[in-house]
């Protein structure tokens, strides 16, 4: 195909075979090596977390460490159950809290708002995703916690004290740093992810879907509910699960606000802990080898949970994104 040579190529002719073949070969080798390094990195992450956390796994067993409720570095007994519970509670509750507002914003920006307003809303939502976790954390410590403590935790606690003493063990002591604070902050932090993914999904729904519903005389909301949302359902669900993954891995803001207690049972207003928060809080102070290894093991379990959540989301995306199936 390159028999008809141009003038500029004729000039390069003597060097061409090397230039072409060796260059292509080298380039491909370099590019594939760079790609391979990402593969290696992902495998290395699993391998390092596993081998560095092997000692506790050996001592307590895979299920023993998972379901162990005692975390006592002094006695050398470690189990990740309290942190697992804390992680799951905060992540699921924050997703539940943020899901409908997030979908609301997505619908508003994709369907209702005029273009200029949609642009502003999208920008602010994307910006919210970019706010560093520690910045949210310092705001939580100095603004949200005092506010919640004086206006929510204490009043509710005193109300329960007078009227419903049965609730007290569930509510727990009204410390400002607690599960509820962590859940609120987490919800705030994962909203943009759910919103962005839902927004894209809604925008991808073909016009004909909407026009068909309009032609039947549907109101705007009925168009959304009957024609658009069912079509985008799969992608929205996948987005929510990806957000759940974010919430599970979110570290700094939670570590700063959750209160850090490593004994069950957790209460709503009492301190708790999550898997990332215990790693952050104890890793630098861990002197015992077993303590350090146990934190690595917690990291390994966190890896497994994140992996599962991400794979589920990817699977859902592939399975449901094709076209939302029929109503």
């Amino acid at each position: 195909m390159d028999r008809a040579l141009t003038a500029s190529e004729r000039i390069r002719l003597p060097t061409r075979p090397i230039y072409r073949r060796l260059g292509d070969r080298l380039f491909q080798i370099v590019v594939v090596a760079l790609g391979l390094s990402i593969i290696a990195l992902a495998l290395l992450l699993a391998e390092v977390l596993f081998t560095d956390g092997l000692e506790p796994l050996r001592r307590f067993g895979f299920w023993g460490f998972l379901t162990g409720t005692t975390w006592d570095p002094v006695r050398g007994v470690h189990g990740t159950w309290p942190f697992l519970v804390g992680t799951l509670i905060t992540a699921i509750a924050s997703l539940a809290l943020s899901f409908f507002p997030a979908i609301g914003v997505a619908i508003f920006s994709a369907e209702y708002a005029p273009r200029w307003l949609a642009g502003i809303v999208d920008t602010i939502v994307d910006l919210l995703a970019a706010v560093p976790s520690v910045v949210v954390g310092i705001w939580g410590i100095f603004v949200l916690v005092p506010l919640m403590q004086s206006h929510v935790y204490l009043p509710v606690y005193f109300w329960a004290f007078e009227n419903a003493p049965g609730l007290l063990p569930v509510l727990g002591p009204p410390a400002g740093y607690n599960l509820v604070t962590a859940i609120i902050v987490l919800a705030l932090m994962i909203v943009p992810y759910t919103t962005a993914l839902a927004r894209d999904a809604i925008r991808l729904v073909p016009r004909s879907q909407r026009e068909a519903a309009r032609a039947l005389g549907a109101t705007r909301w009925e168009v959304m509910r009957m024609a658009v949302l069912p079509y985008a359902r799969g992608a929205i669900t996948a987005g929510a699960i990806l957000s759940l993954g974010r919430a599970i891995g979110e570290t700094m803001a939670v570590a700063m606000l959750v209160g850090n207690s490593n004994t069950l049972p957790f209460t709503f207003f009492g301190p708790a802990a999550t898997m990332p928060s215990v790693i952050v809080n104890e890793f630098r102070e861990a002197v015992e080898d077993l303590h350090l290894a146990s934190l690595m093991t917690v990291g390994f379990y966190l890896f497994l949970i994140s992996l599962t959540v991400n794979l589920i989301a990817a699977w859902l995306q592939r399975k449901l994104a094709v076209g939302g199936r029929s109503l």
Partner: protein
Amino acid sequence: MAVTAPATGSAAPPAAAPRGLATVTPEHLRRRYRRDRFMIGLLVLATAAVLVPLLIIVWYVVSNGISAVLTFDFYTQDLGSPARALQGRPTGLGHTILGTIVVDALALLIAVPIGVGAGIMLSEYPDHPLNPVLRILNDTLNGMPAILKGLLAFSLIVKPMGTFSGISGAVALAFVMLPIIARATEGVLRIIPWSIREAGLALGLPRWRVVLNTVLPAARVGVVTGILIAFARAAGEAAPLLFTSFGNNFFSSTPLRYLMGPVDTLPARLYSLAISPYKEWHAMGWGAAVILLVLVIVTFVGTRIVTRARHATDL
């Protein structure tokens, strides 16, 4: 008009319509319109509920941190011991800002070539047998909590070196950036039409020149945007830095120490200032938050400007 029509002859067509549209009576219509308006109200409320907190956070950060940020010492002095702040002697986060620049720049230096290279592999060699694996693992890596990448950098670099170091912090941040850059690069390279590559190949250019001289320049804006997004994400991460670059209250004595010794970074310092018991340090923490927020917002606005410029030239 519409009142009488359905009342007399509401036979075949409405029955075939989806549920909710079947019977059209004035009262029914009114209820549907009312629900429509109600939902609009609800959506506006949801939007406000999501957007207002961001503005509140930004407002609090700026109003609490502005006084610290506007002093000269904040940029030129190092932190020192708490006594310095308590006694009102000059103290600042100059070493932190310097450390952040070193660590972030080094992280970019590591992550950009690898990430862009992996992106090229995914888009330019689509039939490479390892691509499906790479794509899945890259997405997996992207979904992994940043703190785990910090643990990895700790095991790979801090442990063998025997000391916390700027390098290990940069590597940890590079782990955060890598999958984002790779993914963004693949995405933008794929948008470039194959006809451009074919045009290059038809001129007799070898494949690597086609990629480097026609595809990459055409996708330059998108690649840069991906890098900026990755940077904004990594620059705010504190978790992976706490046990890699660790922290330092002073300027390092030699430039080499910024790479080989413990180094302060803004997110990690912000964390330790916020949980410290000193009021003066809290104020500096707010100041660090302002700088971090400005850094992230500037990067973010940068991506917007860059992409907008591209759209302008497209038209």
